[in-house]
């Protein structure tokens, strides 16, 4: 029983962290139809920046600085690597995303010198706590709560503000919204800013729980978050969150069985099954191709 509770707890916490990354994927995909392969690496870079910054300044300064720098990084990546390719075929943009991911990983490798780095302990959220007799960390409980708060805020932003309306319009029809006077480029930038901000928050929660950062730290969570976004129906924020929680819990349960070898493979198998059976995911809207 204790084992079961501990499994569910870590599943929910992993799921929450995937959710924060998945939102970035799903928003960008919804608008640009681009799998932003670099998103997972932005998440990793946020972790590294925290390590280097917290060594030289107190946490109450370094946390906001990390959030700002990560947002800036996301913004710059979009401006430098994706904007010039706006009219290019989708494959070029995706290759550009892979290139950025490759660049970020190699820069991280160069900066860390190939050594694994240890994330600083953040007061309170890294403290141990007992839930139903199961020892864990505060971050395990805070993560899902944080995710829910952020998602509610984000949904409000999207449904009730002008910017949100513009985002929905751009996602629906790129050209028509441009004709309606929406500044596409700033809307896309805002999307990237929100996505990177959430990735930065996610990285603080994630690396507090799993405190070793290596250059490839972002790759797997990134891919899994993408799978979660597809599972929930790409473009749908609640879908991405629910998808992330389902994948997080499934993955931890599989790790607890004899088939632990296939815990990653399972995620991809799930992805393929969904893509083949129901490509729009749980909450996605069916899009029709116009000829």
């Amino acid at each position, binding site marked *: 029983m*204790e*084992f079961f509770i*501990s*499994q569910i707890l*870590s599943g929910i916490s*992993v799921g929450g962290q995937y959710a924060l990354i998945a939102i970035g994927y799903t928003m960008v995909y919804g608008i640009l139809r681009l799998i932003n392969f670099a998103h997972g690496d932005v998440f990793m870079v946020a972790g590294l920046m925290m390590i280097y910054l917290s060594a030289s300044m107190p946490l109450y300064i370094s946390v906001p600085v990390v959030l700002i720098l990560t947002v800036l990084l996301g913004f710059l990546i979009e401006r430098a690597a994706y904007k010039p390719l706006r009219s290019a075929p989708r494959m070029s943009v995706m290759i550009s995303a892979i290139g950025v991911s490759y660049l970020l990983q190699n820069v991280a*490798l160069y900066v860390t*010198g*190939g*050594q*694994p780095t*240890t994330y600083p302990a953040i007061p309170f959220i890294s403290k*141990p706590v007992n839930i139903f007799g199961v*020892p*864990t*960390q505060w971050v395990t409980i805070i993560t899902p709560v944080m995710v829910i708060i952020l998602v509610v805020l984000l949904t409000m932003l999207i449904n009730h503000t002008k910017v949100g309306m513009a985002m929905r319009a751009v996602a629906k029809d790129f050209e028509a919204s441009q004709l309606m006077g929406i500044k596409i480029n700033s809307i896309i930038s805002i999307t990237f800013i929100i996505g990177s901000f959430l990735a930065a928050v996610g990285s603080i929660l*994630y690396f507090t*729980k*799993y*405190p*070793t950062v*290596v250059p*490839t*730290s972002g*790759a*797997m*969570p990134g891919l899994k978050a993408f799978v979660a976004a597809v599972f929930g129906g790409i473009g749908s924020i609640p879908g991405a969150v629910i998808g992330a929680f389902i994948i997080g819990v499934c993955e*931890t349960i599989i*790790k*607890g069985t004899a088939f*632990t*070898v296939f*815990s*990653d*493979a399972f995620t991809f198998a799930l992805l393929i099954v969904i893509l083949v059976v129901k490509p729009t995911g749980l909450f996605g809207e069916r899009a029709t191709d116009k000829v």
Partner: protein
Amino acid sequence: MKKRILALVLALCMVFTLVACGPKTENNDNQNNNNNNTDAKVIKIGVFEPLTGDSGAGGKKEYLGMQYANSQSPTVEIGGETYTIELVPSDNNSDQAKAVSAASNLVNANVSLVLGSYGSGVSIAASETFNDAGLAAIGVTCTNPGVTAGNDHYFRICFLDPFQGTVLANYAADLGAKKAYCLGELGNEYDQGLIAYFTQAFEAVNGEGSVISDSFPKDNSDFTTYINKAKSEGAEVFFCPVSIAYATQIISQAANLDVSFPFLGSDTLDDNMVLEAAKGTNIQLFVTTFYAEGGNPEFDAGIKEYLNSNSEAMTNNGGNDTISAVTVMGYDAYNLALEALKAAGSGDPAAVKAALPSVTYTGVSGAIAFDEIGDAMRDTAFIKTANTTDGVWEFVKEQAAG
């Protein structure tokens, strides 16, 4: 037009790099050489280590030992002439796919023999390249039996996995454990090999089914599930012979999970990053290793001084001056190589290869002599435990396999 410019630029790049490569071999002489005396005769020793990638941290520490040894004895006396020793590093990226070209790079630089690598996979992958070139290689801490088996050019100065696995299993039994939980990285021959040998030896004592083994996929970071599983299965010892990055994750996550069983690790866990992760927790961690700090106070003092005076070396050692056993092994490997050069009477690779089997040397980590396979005859391993309050390794005992 644009394309033509690009073509031109690329062509220029090619020409430039070709020109740049031409005199590379001669100019290599100057690099990493403390005394740039061009008149002196030079013997090159290739360093085949992972300086980046999964095993980068370990490879750097091993290289550090060689660099320190090189700073201590930069020359060798052969037949009345003094030769300057130059270390030629080549990064194998901890990746088999890159290992072959990294090895070729050393062959191309005309080295006399090769030291390395940390990690058995890359050593096995590069083995044939060295063999084709008639080069002898001395494995420093590659513990997989496959490295030296079936060839006459690869030697090694450390103990082997079957031995280490048995030592660890015996020590686990000494700790009174009746049930063990093993965790290794999926697809990593080092982890899986050690677990297999550990299982054999442990089950021989405690009966079938006393070992539960799991593998985690590459780049995994959530280990709480595995630790909880070990708890719920009633394991009395947790064996995790994994790479440094994973080991730090396992230790720091276990610290928050209230575990009562001790953690057992292999030589990879003897690293100050792992120690750092264990510091301030209530984790019991035991590792088998090649050397325990304090075994040779003179050496310890010397290398600590070297580390503290060289900021780059300090960074490569993980930011503090705790001595890793791999550094000691790197030091011994370098000195053994000097002995081999003396025995060979020249820097000719073939002569070095012929001389190596009979070379003996008593290093910081103990006496080294090769058996007919090319392995060092070692019958004991050091067991150390992490002192979690002070963040230092404490020597427990020397353990034999029997």
